[in-house]
């Protein structure tokens, strides 16, 4: 796993999140603030399960050790 791969992946994820935020925000007044807020919320929805999974994995890992 190289830095380059992480960059490509995060670029893709970022683009995806922006798309979703844009569509979620289309009925709102468009300001940077609301956009940022929605972006943050959607990002959290993505990050939370990932963090949860990593935590679970680490827990099992140390239990086995």
């Amino acid at each position, binding site marked *: *796993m190289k830095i*380059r*791969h*992480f960059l*490509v*992946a*995060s*670029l*893709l*994820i970022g*683009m*995806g*999140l*922006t*798309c*979703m*935020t*844009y*569509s*979620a925000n*289309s009925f709102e007044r468009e300001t940077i603030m609301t956009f940022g807020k929605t972006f943050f919320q959607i990002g959290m929805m*993505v990050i939370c399960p990932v963090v949860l999974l990593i935590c679970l994995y680490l827990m099992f890992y140390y239990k*086995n050790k």
Partner: protein
Amino acid sequence: MRISRIGLKLAAAFMILFIILLMTLGMAIDQLFSHFYYAQMKEDSQELASHFVSMAKNKEATSTTMIQNFAEFSSVKIVWVTENGQVISRSDKSKGQHPFINQKDLNHMFSGQSIDFIYKDTSGHRYYVLGKPVVKNQKSQSALYIVSSMNKIDDSIRTVRKLLLLSALGAFLVALGMTFIMSKVLSHPLLKMQKVTDRMAKGDWNARLNIRQKDEMGMLGQSINNLAQSLQRYRDTRQEFFANISHELRTPITYLEGYSQVLTDNLVENESEKKKYLTIIHQEAIRLQKLVDDLFELSKMEEGKTELTIERLDMKDIILNTLSKVKLKAEQKKINLKTEIHQDIPFILGDSYRMEQILLNLLENAIKYTDQGEIIVQLVSENSSLVLSVSDTGQGIPEEELPYIFDRFYRIEKSRSRDYGGTGLGLSIVKKLVDLQGGSIHVESKLDVGTTFTLTFPQHEELESLESSS
């Protein structure tokens, strides 16, 4: 960037799965939205229609204008018709026809039911048409058509659809990014294994995999490491083996060469010296013969090509047989041969010829490395296994050399073996033969006190059950 095929396959599988999910979900949401809007509009129109109908029922004269105003206000079109389809009044000023009015619907309405349908005009606009009878004194007198344009709803649905597509694209991109990372992580150890095995195939047996996972991948990596290790050991021992062989062969050959040279050049002074040289040549030839025989035996065993004829063995017979063979040698060295054979010795499974070979080797060693004293062969049964030991009162083996005496060509002090003429293969053959027959060998020794070799053979299960039943 190196594209790993397994990663690609994994990613493709994930993405296909994801697209299928996304499409079904999108369809569901799209349907949900259109049905929701449609239901909303139906409800609104229904409400509006009942207002209009109650208005139409009340005052015939004034209601016409009122209805028209009201219709304009709620941005719908109203068409008020009689039973045969004649328009009494209409809200829009245009004099166009009303192609959605037909007799069948009218009949329906005048029998007291309301109707609704979606009508599409020539320019492609969609309208929701609701028809309701105006009932007075339990009789349908006329009917109202309420026509509301669906333009707005269609526009909304179109926008929602676009936004749905956009968020689907977003979700797709997010999934793509995550799958990218995941496939990299999953295929990384495989690629590493491939690289390392490649290096191994090219002869670099020191290459090792460093995989700490505990799953199948980790196990595979561990297996690869083990394989490399055993191959490395194999290569090393083979090299050592060849070096040893050539060395072992060279020594007797130099003797043969030297002494035969002396004899051919007639450098001997008298007959007895000549005889001495000839004896040496003869001995070396015998040694060479034995060496070749042993090597052949050993290599056959290492390749697993020795065939054993397994049968029920009576160890007593074998011991007595072997002892009679070495009796002469022992007598020459004035060594006492003693046996201690207990009663009730269990039968074991094994190859009698090989068993004799084992015993012969051990006894020969004992006689060879004992100058005075006695040799005791003991046969006892212990925990239902057979224990055979050969002890002598000879020179013994230094403790630090004990672990190596079963190695090929291993001899204690090269000078010692020179005197006795050993090759160092005897014990390694013994060890192999014992292993082949499911036994174990163990040695105890003290320098200048004596040596004891102990063999243990477990009683075979079948024989055990046979014996206990009889």
